């Protein structure tokens, strides 16, 4: 019976927050799949089409080669996790604004809106992993036991990163709506500055420092190593968690500073 107390004084219990996030994620999944005959196929189709286009443009036309792996396989290992990041970040600016009526009328911890949107993108990413498996087998590679600890470990690091950044973007966009446009441009740029369609090994040595400064590069590289080699690189994992924690801290600070005014600004 204490749950309603959130409306007045006490902080909401963790189990209540978990319920709230669960219900919101369920809603997003149901809404996405209702009235669509192909359902699951759509969540795989999007990254697959992009991968196919890059394969043709870069792998076939420009004859880009990644030492050790067939190009389509290499591409998909980075493209799928990137797709999660891109769709969460692309949707982030509108998370609070699209829920304006809710924010104006009901008192609830608003950050759950961001968490549930990032989580449902995470679930979509996890659902696409069987496609990675199929492609590995097709090219004579195989999945590895190291995926069992590796996938949850990297997925959690990515959740921290994306959730933190999305929280910041969603909050700032309430007071500065132009951010939405900037995020789109920034994502485009970041995609090509992150080793998704190319590997670090073919980047000239003098530019490696820039890749090290890219906060999402360790994450993508860790996914590629895990999917392609079955290897969980401790250094990359550590770097991914470092940038995850930084994103989370920055996002939380910005959210804390701005959220008291959401009710009148959205």
């Amino acid at each position, binding site marked *: 019976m204490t749950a309603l107390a959130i409306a007045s004084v006490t902080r909401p219990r963790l189990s209540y927050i978990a319920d709230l996030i669960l219900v919101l994620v369920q809603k997003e999944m149901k809404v996405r799949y209702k009235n669509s005959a192909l359902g699951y196929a759509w969540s795989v189709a999007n990254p697959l089409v992009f991968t196919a286009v890059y394969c043709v443009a870069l792998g076939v036309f420009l004859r880009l080669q990644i030492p050790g792996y067939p190009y389509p396989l290499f591409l998909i290992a980075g493209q799928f996790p990137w797709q999660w990041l891109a769709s969460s970040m692309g949707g982030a600016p509108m998370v609070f604004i699209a829920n304006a009526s809710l924010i104006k009328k*009901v008192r609830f911890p608003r950050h759950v809106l961001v968490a549930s949107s990032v989580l449902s993108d995470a679930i979509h990413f996890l659902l696409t992993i069987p496609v990675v498996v199929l492609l590995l087998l097709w090219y004579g590679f195989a999945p590895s036991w190291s995926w069992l600890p590796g996938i949850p470990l990297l997925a959690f690091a990515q959740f921290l990163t994306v959730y933190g950044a999305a929280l910041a973007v969603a909050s700032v966009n309430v007071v500065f709506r132009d951010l939405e446009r900037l995020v789109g441009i920034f994502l485009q740029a970041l995609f090509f500055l992150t080793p998704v369609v190319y590997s670090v090994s073919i980047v000239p040595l003098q530019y490696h420092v820039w890749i090290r400064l890219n906060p999402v590069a360790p994450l993508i590289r860790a996914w590629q190593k895990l999917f392609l080699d079955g290897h969980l690189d401790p250094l990359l994992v550590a770097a991914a968690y470092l940038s995850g924690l930084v994103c989370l801290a920055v996002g939380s600070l910005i959210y804390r500073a701005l959220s008291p005014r959401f009710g009148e600004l959205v």
Partner: protein
Amino acid sequence: MTAIRIDHVSKAYARHRHLTRGVKESLLHLPDVIRRVRAEPFRALDNICLEVRKGEAVGIIGANGSGKSTMLALIAGVIEPEAGTIEVHGRVAPLLELGAGFHYELTGRENIVLNGVLMGLTRREVAERMEAIVAFSGLEAWLNEPIRTYSSGMVARLGFSVAVHLDPEILLVDEILAVGDAHFQAKCYDRLDEFRRQGVTIVIVTHARAEVQRLCERAVWLDGGKIAMQGEPEAVLEAYAKS
């Protein structure tokens, strides 16, 4: 026992002004522009003091833009005051909008869970109340249909049915009772009477004279963000009608 104490509360909204001078001129006279924007916020509530006793039913009346909804939003905690303090003692059910968070593609049952959890119940608490909520709504036959197939009155009924099962100690109601058919409205009023008997504190914003007369023991008339008059409902309604 005090349920709600509003102590010298003011709330101002920034006005959205266009840069009438053009970008270059505005940038050249930036301090001046900022001063003008700051000097003219819209004062929705101006130094309000109000106490609501536990179990009391208070009706807030006043013209559009007099600050009624701002007051409820402050009590509900969806916005924060510029100055002053607000104390709220007890579980609040803010019925500022029926069916907040409803999604039209989801079924009635799914929306009950969504709305109930958003309003502060755990999933388990919603499950325990599901039967009662459904029975109150009278929408058993429609429960597994997406609510986009519902009429607007049916959607409101569903929302109200969840709302009255939140076990509130303080109920904030913002002009939401003018929904549903006569039969359902009567049911809503019965439920509000029941809440009153149980000692639930009620703050209701309304334009309907009859609602204040029927439900409230005190009326508060807001005018331009200040309390113009408060007291016995008949007297306040009379004075408001004459103004």
